[in-house]
Every structure is written in C-alpha cells, then in structure tokens.
C-alpha cells in the first residue's frame, strides 16, 4: 500500500517536472521577448524591464530560478498586469472555477448515473430510448454550441437567467449545464452498458433465485460492480471539465481561471500561461490519484500495484 503510494507520488513528481521543463522551454522558444510586441519602447526602458524580470540571464539560470520559484509555490510575476503575480490571478479565479466545476461534476454524477440506471432497468422501452437519444445528442454537440444557443434562448429571449455573472444562483444554471452536458451523456451511456453487463451475470440470477429484494439486488450486487468502470473515467472527467471551462467561462464572462488563461493567451502573457498550465497539470494529477484511491476502496480485489501491467 504505502510503497504503492510512494511510487505513485514519485511518478507524479517526475511527470510534473517534465511538464514544467517542457512548458518553460516551449514558452521560451517563442521568438522575441515578452516586451518586444509592445508599442515601440525606448531601448533603455526595455533593457530595464528585461533586467527587472531577469530576462538577461542565460536561459538555464532563468530555468533554475523558475524551478526554485515553483518549489516555494511562487509562479512569478505577470508580464501584462504590473505588480500582480500569477499566484494572485489563480487564487482570484479559483473560487469561481472550482464552484462551477464542482457543481458540474455533481451534475454529471447525480444525473448521469441515475439516467443510466433508468435506461438499463427499462432496456428497449421508451425510457431507454429517450435516455439514449439524449445521450447521443449530448455527446455530439460541442459544449460551446450548447452554451451559446442556451444563452440566446434562456437569457436573451426568455430572460429566465442572467446573461453573465454569478450574482445569484440562477447565474450558475447555464454554465453548469453547458459544462456538464457532454460528460453527463457519456456517463449515462457508460453506466447503462456497464449495469446491463453486470445484470446479465450469473450471481445476479443467483441473488434473484434466493428471493432477495430487487432493490437490494440492484444496489448491493448490481451497482457496486457496475460503478467500477464509471469511477475509472471520473479522473479524465475532472480534467475535461476543467479544460472545458476555458470556453464556458469565456462565453458567460465568468471571472474564473479559464478566463484568465484565455486572456493571457491573447495577451501573450507568457508567465501566466506557464503558471496556469502547471497549476492545472498538478491539480489534475492529484485528482487522478484521488480517483485511484476511490477505485481501490470500491473494489478491494484490485491490487493497485497491478494496475499498471
């Protein structure tokens, strides 16, 4: 157990180190410094700026400094907002992104799995057809299309929800719906097929023959096994909810990390791009580790160490 976690965390550190290195050198491969794209700066000013941000040092010194900064959890200054550090930007956007992301995840799990169960228990009846149709639509239509169409219909035409901002709870409805649409459909499809497979197993027949209550069969024997493949995809779901939030936050003008990220791309604010990428990567890897622990709790048969084989 402990050895496994030590190994996993070790691999995480290695991966993170690779990501930091890759990101750093990718960002420094871009021709021109961060200040060359500005309106003609006086050479002295540019020189002073470069000196202030340590951009005149050789690349490897900058790299080491950056690594040192990351170890002390400092992602460096933003190049576009004077006096603001990337840490501040992330901390500023985190509550919004975390809240919408968490609500979307809740939506995915609390609606997707029951829908899948409903479909599986009524296989080939109208409930099944309806859920599967909804799921097909949800998988095929890109989230930003859903978001803009929903924005037009519910915010601009019907005035049911605000067009932007999160001042009251209604502001969350559309972003969360648009963000969770794809994964809700995906999870519904997955839990349907997974539950169907489990319900076809011999031990379910045995349980029925023993005269167990149908609900107890469903929850104790069916779902517990059917949930395993669903838990495995939860890690990637979290990852995609996060990256999906770039566009959703843009469309609904939510002041989250995704919006800072997209803005920093159009501003060519390299330290912010680097910092947010690394933050995302670290966050995701922690999430995947948590999902793996959950996975083990759910299915004691799985020895974690064997999973990589």
């Amino acid at each position, binding site marked *: 157990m402990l050895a496994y976690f030590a190994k996993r965390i070790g*691999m*995480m550190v*290695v*991966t993170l180190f*690779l*990501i930091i290195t890759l*990101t750093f050198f*990718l*960002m420094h*491969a*871009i021709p021109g410094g961060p200040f060359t794209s500005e309106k003609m700066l006086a050479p002295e000013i540019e020189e002073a700026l470069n000196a202030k941000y340590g951009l005149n040092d050789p690349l490897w010194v900058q790299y080491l400094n950056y690594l040192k900064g990351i170890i002390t959890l400092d992602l460096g200054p933003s190049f576009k907002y004077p006096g603001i550090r990337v840490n501040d930007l992330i901390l500023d956007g985190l509550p919004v992104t975390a809240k919408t992301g968490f609500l979307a995840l809740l939506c995915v799990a609390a609606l997707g799995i029951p829908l899948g169960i409903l479909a599986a228990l009524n296989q080939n009846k109208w409930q099944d057809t309806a859920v599967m149709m909804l799921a*097909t639509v949800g*998988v*095929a*239509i*890109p989230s*930003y*299309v859903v978001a*803009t*169409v929903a*924005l*037009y219909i519910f915010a*601009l035409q019907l005035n049911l929800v605000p067009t932007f901002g999160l001042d009251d709870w209604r502001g969350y409805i559309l972003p969360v719906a648009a963000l969770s649409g794809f994964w809700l459909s995906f999870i519904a499809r997955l839990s349907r*097929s997974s539950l*169907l497979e489990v319900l076809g197993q011999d031990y379910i027949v045995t349980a029925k023959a023993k005269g167990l209550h149908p609900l107890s069969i469903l929850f104790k024997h069916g779902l517990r096994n059917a949930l395993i493949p669903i838990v495995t995809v939860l890690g990637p779901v979290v*990852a*995609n909810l*996060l*990256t999906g939030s*770039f*566009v959703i936050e*843009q*469309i609904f003008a939510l002041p989250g990390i995704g919006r800072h990220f*997209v803005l920093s*791309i*159009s501003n*060519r604010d390299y330290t912010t*791009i680097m910092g947010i*990428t690394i933050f*995302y*990567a670290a966050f*995701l*890897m922690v999430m*995947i580790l948590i999902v793996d622990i959950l996975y083990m709790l759910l299915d004691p048969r799985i020895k974690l160490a064997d999973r*990589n084989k």
Partner: protein
Amino acid sequence: MNNLNQKIDPQQWAPAKVDAGEAEFIAAPSLTFWQDVRSRLWQNRPAMFSLAFIILLVAAAIFGPMISRHTYFDQDLKLSNIPPILQLYEVQNEGQAATYFFLNSGNFKLYETTEDGELKSILRAKRKDLINKRHIYEFGERRIFVDYSTLPARIVDADENAIDAYGTKWNKTYWFGTDSLGRDVLVRQLYGARISLTVAFIATLVNFFIGIFYGGVAGYFGGNVDNIMMRIVEVIATIPLTLYVILMMVVLQSGFISIIVAIGTVFWVDMARIVRGQMLTLKNQDYVDAAKTMGASTWHILTRHLLPNSIGPILVTLTLLIPSAIFIESFMSFIGLGVSVPMASWGTLTSEAVETLRSYPYQLFFPAAAISLTMFAFNFLGDGLRDALDPRLRK
C-alpha cells in the same frame, strides 16, 4: 385436452433419412470477413445515413467553393448582415416600374431587391430623424418611414399606417445571407468545412501513423522495450492534452499548418495503447510463429500479419478520432487560436456568429448545425463500424 385425441399422420412417425452429405451442406453463401462486415454495416441505417452525409459533405466542401460565384474572402461592407430569408415590400410609383425592398431588422436599413429576391443594393435614406427614431426614404413622390422607436422595427407610410409585406422570398444572391463584413455565409460555411475536415483528416492520419508505429513496436518487442515505452505513454496520458494543444498553438503561432501539427502530435496515445494491446494478443498466434520459422523479417510480420489482423479496432478508433479532432480544432478556433483570417473554420465561424448574437441570432445557426451534424455522423459511423467489425460488442 383436445389435442391428445388428435390423429397423427403415420407418415410423420417414419424415421428421417440420414444423409451425411446433406449435413455438411452449407446453405448460406460463404462470406469473407469484410463481406460480412459490409453487409452488417449496410443494415445499420444510422451508420449508412451518416456515411452518405459525410460523403456529401466532403463533396460539397471540395466543389462548393469552386462553383459558387462568391469567394470566402470577398467583402462588401454595404451588404453586411443580410439575412437568408427576405420579407419584401413593394412600392408603386406612377409611370415607373415597382421597387422592391426589404428591411434588415438588425440595422434598420432598407435594401433594394428584384421581385424574386435577387439583391441589388442598399437604399440611401433621405433623412435620418434620430430624435423620433425613424429613417425617411423617398421613392419618387412617395415617402416611407422606417420606425424603430418600438422594436421590432416596422415600415410605415406618411399616415402612420404599417405597410403590408409583399411576400417572403429566399435570398437568391446570398443563399445563407452575409456576415458582418458582407461575405457570403454559404461559401464561408463550405470553405470552413474544407478547413475543418482537412485539419481533422490530416491530424488523425498523423496520430494514426505515430500511434501504430509506437504501439506496434512496444507490443511486438514486449519486455523492457514495452515497459519503458508504456511508462512514457502513462506520463503523457496524465498531461491534460488540450492544454498542450493550446501551448503548442501559442508557440507555433496560429495558422493552418500549426493546428495540424498541434493536434496531430498529441492525440496518438489511445491509438498506441490499442495497437499495443492487439499486438500482445496476436503475436503469440501460431501463424506468427509459422512466419518466423519461415524466416520472415520483423517488418514483414508486423506489416503483413499483425497490422492487417488488428485493423478492426484501429479503424474504429480512427473514426472516433476524427470527430474529436474536429472538436478540438473548433475549440481552438473558438478561443482565438485556430486558423487566421480570412480563412474560416467552423470554430471561427461560430465565434464570429457569437459576436453578433444579439442582433443577428440566425447567423449562429449554420455553423452550429454544420458542426453538430458532422459530429453526429462520425459518431454514428464509428459506433456502426464497431458493431459491424465485432458483433459481440453490440449492446
């Protein structure tokens, strides 16, 4: 229990003839694997419709921009934001032919057309009465007012009576209307389809070759090679790939080639895993041993025996990679990292339409519909292929 008394024809009690030859008779025609797959796919209606749709789409994307009399970059700022469906009004003038025009409800301007919806030009207002929110147009003797003090705007005559519309016509000049710079939406749609599909196909092909090569080598050689290569894949798989496409686009600067490179070099991990899995199961088959005994080279065994036999899952992964490539491309274009103007892809078209969403909501319809239908089609085709190639997987 009536049927107990039923008489049974003694003939039916006679022993059946035993004919060894007949038992071996194969009634159904013998089909090869691919014939079987084809017939199963053919019976799958949604998949066949999707295939037909994709073929039509590709043909339209190739030939559409050639046939059209507009080009994707020609701007006509006087004729911007024209809707595809025109509500025509008619003005009679003594001694002269009637004038037909329509009101663009987004910008309150009048445009002259022919009787059947061919666009002529923008009409110049005689005077703009901004205080009372009305534009005054003169047609010879007659005066017409565009009143936008109450929305939607209406057309009234001098006595404040609303003028009845002459009829509703489809825009004959710009079938799908024009965008905010007066470019033909239809041709930009088709051109966008061209870009989006090209990016998706090439990026998928690049992923395909990298994935096959990587997975094939790892799976075939096994052992330590496999161990190391799969560790690398694991590391890559934990990196959020969308982030890396974004980073690559920032580094390479947005453009057509860079988006292909960015998408093409990142999403091969699934393909590599699937090919490796196939290789691991297939390489212990007897025919591989036979080939080895006969002195076939590794390359020959890989390309002639192992890859053709794992083509099924590869094909399915490939079809499902295309919609995700289309999606990533449009996603990138949507946040401003896609192809550069005046080129168009479905993503840029959608984001352009979003900018004018309040005044011209219908402009969102065409790109949104195009991308959604295409995603549907590829998803259905992929599912259909999977069912056809491996009927056991059918749920």
